[in-house]
């Protein structure tokens, strides 16, 4: 029994992720705090997205990929043989880099996920509640039957967030959710994340240092091993510590922009 278990939403133990013979991510040990925002930062190609996608087993779709080590959700290893990845993804939602709403109506975008997850309650209520949760309701309440593609990029991304929270996951993974958006839409997404963390644990991958500093409570700094080209977490701490007095010189160079 681990008494601190309740404090953490999800945890990795000696996690390594492989694509065929290539070890993309090596020996990651992270304990992600509940109802906090954890940012994963680091240079391009250091395995941030790969690590993020391991949490909801999206890497399963790469035929040659496999993991060593464990990812524990409520003490259960998500990579156990008897674990159903479909069920994992129902508990751990995801928002992608480029907004990817379904080519359906705004309403259906949200209702669909709830329906396949066996939601039996009042769908209209759930749609409204999810759209309100994503700060989108006022903008779309009069055009729920319109195609989601009629929305702006920023609105589409908030729709994707609404869609993710409609299935009531515990954790929401965000893979550079604002990198394709303009600064105003980005700000709205960041504000929304602060609202969301009251109910959800958020893990966000971002290239944007300021964004990580602004929105996150904890930050994991990733870096490549020079020899093997495997990525790993070199430092993980409270965000203010990472950005003001990091222990690792490489982290300091990176967050102050003196890298490379």
């Amino acid at each position, binding site marked *: 029994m681990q008494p601190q278990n309740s404090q953490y939403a999800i945890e990795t133990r000696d996690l390594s992720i492989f694509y065929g013979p290539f070890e993309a991510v090596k020996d990651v040990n992270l304990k992600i705090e509940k109802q906090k925002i954890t940012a994963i930062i680091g240079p391009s190609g250091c395995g941030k997205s790969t690590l993020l996608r391991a949490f909801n087993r999206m890497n399963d*779709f790469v035929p040659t990929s496999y993991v060593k080590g464990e990812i524990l959700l409520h003490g259960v290893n998500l990579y156990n043989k008897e674990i159903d990845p479909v069920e994992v993804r129902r508990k751990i939602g995801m928002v992608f880099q480029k907004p990817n709403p379904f*080519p359906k109506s705004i309403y259906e975008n949200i209702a*669909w996920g709830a329906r396949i997850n066996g939601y039996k309650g009042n769908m209209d209520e759930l749609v409204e509640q999810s759209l309100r949760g994503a700060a989108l309701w006022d903008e779309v309440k009069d055009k729920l039957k319109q195609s989601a593609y009629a929305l702006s990029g920023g609105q589409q991304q908030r729709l*994707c967030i609404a869609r993710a929270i409609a299935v009531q996951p515990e954790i929401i993974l965000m893979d550079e959710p604002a990198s394709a958006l303009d600064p105003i839409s980005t700000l709205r997404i960041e504000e929304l994340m602060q609202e969301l963390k009251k109910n959800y644990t958020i893990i966000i991958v971002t290239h944007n240092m300021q964004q990580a500093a602004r929105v996150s409570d904890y930050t994991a700094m990733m870096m490549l091993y020079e020899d093997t080209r495997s990525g790993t977490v070199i430092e993980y701490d409270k965000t203010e510590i990472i950005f003001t007095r990091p222990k690792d010189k490489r982290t300091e160079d990176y967050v102050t922009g003196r890298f490379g």
Partner: protein
Amino acid sequence: MSTEISSLTATNQERENWATHLKRRVRWGESAIESSLFLVGVLTIFVTIAITIVLGDQALLFFADPEVTLVEFFTSTKWQPQAGQFGIWALVSATLTTSAIAILVAVPLGLSAAIYLSEYANPRVRAVLKPILEILAGIPTVVYGYFALLFVTPILRSIIGPDKIGVYNMLAAGLVMGIMILPLISSMSEDALSAVPNSLREAAYAMGATPFEASTQVIVPAALSGIGAAVIVGISRAVGETMIVAVASGATSNFTFNPLEAAETMTAHIARISGGDLPYGTVDYNSLFAIALMLFLVTLVLNLISQWIVTKFREQYE
């Protein structure tokens, strides 16, 4: 400051040099390619128009004949040129029946195969299965015809009973025609499914969709334009298919939608009659063009219907 001024006040000599340098060039190769592409495009349109004109012209001769009336042609259900009876429905019914059977076979099977290949099969299985399926498309239709007559029909007769289904019947022809257009439909549908952006697939799976839910409720609707195009081409192939029905479905015109009966389709009739020694300019001869025109029309109407269904149900992604 001084550099700006000097760049604005270029000498006449400099200006001339640059004007020559940037002067529009004549690119003969480009012009030649553009005109030849244009000619080829015009040629295809011209051929289509020419065929339509010839068909229409000869068909007019047919309808101008005192033996024939437009009303009879479009309402009568008897096609017996020897007896002066020209009711097109006797032939249309067979075309529609065999084509409907073919589509009922080919669309569900072809689409399932496409979904399997595009959404379920791993790349290695797919690399083996897809070419095998496409070999089906390379079998000559006359072989399919004899396959229907000599293999499928005997099986059907032993299942349904030889007194209920004849040696020539529309069911065997339709079933085999379905197998013939199956690879076409599966191959085109598979292309349409593969063209659906991966981001939609990821979105569906990240919501906790099973592969079946993702394929049937997100990916297939998004690919419906392409799948619809596959079905339209499939229908056109079925309606226009001649050899299979000529061999396996009988050579007597018969107004019926019962697949167990023998009946001659429009195409099979044209093939049979035009192969004989019809004197030029007779009613029989001209009737072939009227049938051909009708064939055109049936294909067109079926295409329009499928197109309408597709635009109604497709989900457009940008």
